[in-house]
């Protein structure tokens, strides 16, 4: 089994490889079960990625973020002093 993927595209690519291997019918029983297990994990990962962008659009404003960060930094410096 390969290392855990970090991106949707790497996971999707690995899933395609797994499906191709399984469709070829050349994998033995042990390899098939391992591939299916790995594939399930990747599908879960992709589903979680899609889930993260599948509910309500979160809209932020950069100027507010900057102001918040600056306030936080200022507060931290003040606390440090």
């Amino acid at each position, binding site marked *: 089994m390969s290392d855990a993927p970090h991106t949707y595209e790497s996971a999707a690519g690995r899933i395609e490889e797994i499906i191709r291997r399984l469709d070829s019918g050349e994998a033995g029983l042990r390899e098939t079960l391992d591939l299916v297990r790995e*594939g399930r994990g990747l*599908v879960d990962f992709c589903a979680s990625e899609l889930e993260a962008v599948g509910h309500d659009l979160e809209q932020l404003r*950069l100027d507010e973020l900057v102001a918040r960060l600056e306030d936080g930094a200022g507060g931290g410096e003040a606390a440090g002093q």
Partner: protein
Amino acid sequence: MPEPRDSARPGGIAGSELPGPFPVGAYAALLRDQLRRRARVQLFGEVWNLRPARTKVFFELRDGAGAVPCSMWRNEWEALDGTERLADGARAVVAGGPDYYPGSRTSSPSFSFLVRDLRAAGEGDLLAQLERLRRTLDEEGLFKPQKLLSRRLLPRSIGVVTGESGKARDDVLAGLRRRGWAGRLVWAFAPVQDRHAAPAISRALSDLAGWGQVDVIVVARGGGSLADLFAFCDESLCRTVALLAVPVIASVGHHTDRTLIDDVAAASCSTPTHAAETAVPLHCDQARTALLGTGRRLEVHGRRAVVERARALARLSRAPAEHVARQRRARHQQARELRAASRRRLAHERDLTAVHLRVLGRKAQVVALARERAGQRTALGARELDRASRAALALTRRDLERLSLALDAHDPDRTLARGYALVSDHAGELVTSADAARSAGRVGIRFADGQVPARVEDEGS
């Protein structure tokens, strides 16, 4: 200015020493007349924001120090040579003078330099500067870095730099909705048209990239003249974009416009909607559906791998008995086929024999007929032979009788009967002459009724 006669004229501003108040229409007409009296001149500059209307063609004549709004009657514009080549940034010489449309209660007033003649004078300085900067950035390799950045198929967070009140904002949202994407969107609002635009956009881009939480940035602005879009050709802005570590997707103006940020960005799109779709290459709804299908396929593969092998084992365990049964069925089948073949062969032989019998019967009939004909021919031949033999016998008999008669005619006995005699010597040989008789001495004389010996005596002696 003539004294107004409007009875409804309001009073002036208290304390003001200025004359009036006058009706604005009269003042506007006076202003128009004054402007029209100014000297006619020639101006040169760059044509920008060219807008053909129904009766007039409007544009601005600009240079680095200022600008004048211009208009030209459409029929005069169309009578000129080479106006089809005039585009934003083209250099032109115009001849005419200031004019003023005073407007009315229902139409707006406007000032313009009424152009009565025009000559195109080559590419403008601004466009030439733009091309030089484009070449410089290209030669420095600044068109490439953004294009080498990897863009995520499914970004979680997208930054958008655009005008706060522009339509581009709604278009970006529409594009993201079409992708089925609802992640985190960070708006970085900035002016997109004036001299403050380029620094503000650069700052927004740097802040978004520096925050480290956005996967891709969209820079969007709706259509406008190239002059309006000039902020996106700013050298500092373009250098900032080129060196950002986050991919930037530009959508500035319409598809016919090409600003420098389009060249340095990772991707350039014709509309903000398209830019949003490019920022999220994956169609999320389709991907969810496909993922469900993939999950089902994996389950099927896993289940099939076990179930098929279990079935194979079961098949193997049943194999010997099935083999015997299969062999038995095969032998039974062969026996049935053999019997059927024998029956078919017998029937065939029977049919063949019947045919032979019919042939033989016909041949026997032919032979019998031939035999009958042969018998008839034989009988006929026998009769003919009999007739012939009888005829031959009769003929022979007649010949015999004739010969007999002829023989009888030559028979010596008949001669003897007529009185002749035969003389023979003692040896029985006929003596046919007198000398032979004398020589023989003793002879025998045969008569018809018998033979008598005799002795020859010579009377002479």
